[in-house]
């Protein structure tokens, strides 16, 4: 019966199948599966690595951006403070200068006043002495003229005596 033949395995085929499959397993294992699986694994790892690197780069970028922003903020703050300081310094310098100027002016005015006072005094003193000298000279001259003759001198003496008597 041929149907039984369907279910009876042939020894030859078992032997050839076993040998053939082992050969296939060896050849494919060595020359195909090993490099293919290794390559697939490597590719997967490289893709994973690239993705991780990209993620890292993104993170780094964000960090860098944050750092930049911080830096900018700091710089801005510093600039502001510097400016403020500068303005303050300028103001103070101005104020100081003003004060100084007014002080100097005041002093100069005082000095001037004093000098004028002194000059005035000196001038007045000089005028007084000149006036005194002049009046002495005039008096001398007048006296010389008035008392040139004896009569006049005597009358004068008389007059003074009279005055004295009255006192």
């Amino acid at each position, binding site marked *: *019966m*041929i*149907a*039984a*033949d*369907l*279910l*009876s*395995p*042939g*020894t*030859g*085929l*078992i*032997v*050839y*199948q*076993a040998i*053939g*499959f082992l*050969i*296939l*397993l060896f*050849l*494919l*294992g060595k*020359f*195909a*599966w*090993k*490099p*293919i*699986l290794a*390559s*697939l694994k*490597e*590719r997967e790892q*490289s893709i994973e690595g690239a993705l991780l690197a990209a993620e890292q780069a993104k993170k780094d970028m964000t960090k860098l951006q944050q750092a930049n922003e911080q830096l900018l903020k700091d710089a801005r703050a510093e600039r502001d403070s510097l400016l403020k300081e500068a303005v303050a310094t300028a103001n103070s310098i101005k104020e100081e200068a003003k004060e100084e100027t007014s002080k100097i002016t005041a002093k100069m005015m005082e000095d001037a006043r004093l000098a004028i006072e002194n000059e005035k005094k000196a001038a007045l003193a000089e005028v007084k002495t000149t006036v005194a000298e002049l009046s002495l000279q005039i008096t001398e001259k007048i006296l010389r003229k008035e008392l040139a003759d004896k009569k006049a001198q005597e009358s004068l003496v008389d007059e003074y005596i009279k005055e004295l008597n009255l006192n």
Partner: protein
Amino acid sequence: MFGKPSKSYSKTLSINILAFFLLFLPVVSQAAPSGGGDKEEGATDFILHHVVDDYVWHFFDGHYGTIYLPVILYSQDRGLEVFSSHHFYGEHHELVAYNGYEIHDGHIAAVDHDRSITDLSITKNTAMLFVTMAVVLLLVLSAARHYKKNPNTAPKGVASFLEPIILYVRDEIAKPNIGKKYERFMPYLLTLFFFIWIGNILGLLPGAANLTGNIAVTFTLAVFTFIVTNVNGNKDYWKHVFATPGVPKPLLLIMVPVEFVGLFTKPFSLMVRLFVAITAGHIVILSLIGLVFIFQSHAAGVASTIMVTFINLIEILVATIQAYVFTLFSAMYIGAAVADHDHH
């Protein structure tokens, strides 16, 4: 038949399979209606001729349509004998005895029944095996060339065709079923998958032999899975078989034999599943073609052609599914043998 030892061996195996697969046999008996005319018998003969092994590879009738394959026999008294199977066929393609051998029930046997011989002939299926091997080698090695030449680039050509399948076997079959140790078994599983898949598909070609639907082939593949599984079985695996944890002592008397038989039923199911799925598919297609010769009408011809086309498409699906299933179950058996049973 073969020699005495192999004869008794194949008998017991046949009986086992017959007992196990009564389901399948009705298909055969339906295909071979008893007591039919010559036409019917001729039709069923051609069906069975197509699905069983043979010593010739018949493509079409006529002088050049048949390849006579080499017969290789080994016997203790005569040693190795190699000759063409042409000698077994007479002028009208009838079977004749040659050199003390004859073809009996599809196998070469000695006319003198006391002589025991080992048949190592290149049969139709053996030739088909070589063709399948060549195709698988060509396909896979040409894909491998891409990976060697341009590592770390996107696949191209054959590689892009095979890569999804390789990844599928790795990610969907090996990784989930075997676990961490999957890498060691990848070459076996991939070879298994591609051999069965290509074998199944090539078997569907007109004139091709029914290689993966041959019980010897599925038997050998199942034995490989059996060996790989049990050689790699760890302590937990064997403990599970011979001293199932968490089972009361008296129950072990039942459990241990059941578990032990289970070691063999697993590959046995692998063997039978592939054999039946592929052979049944071939028989269905051939039965539908056979209808044309039985009814000899145009209507039957048209109907059978349409049916055969559909069944062929289904068979392409079955070819892939069976390759997947065989690989999947192999991975599961291996996985059970190498798994670390932390949960026990």
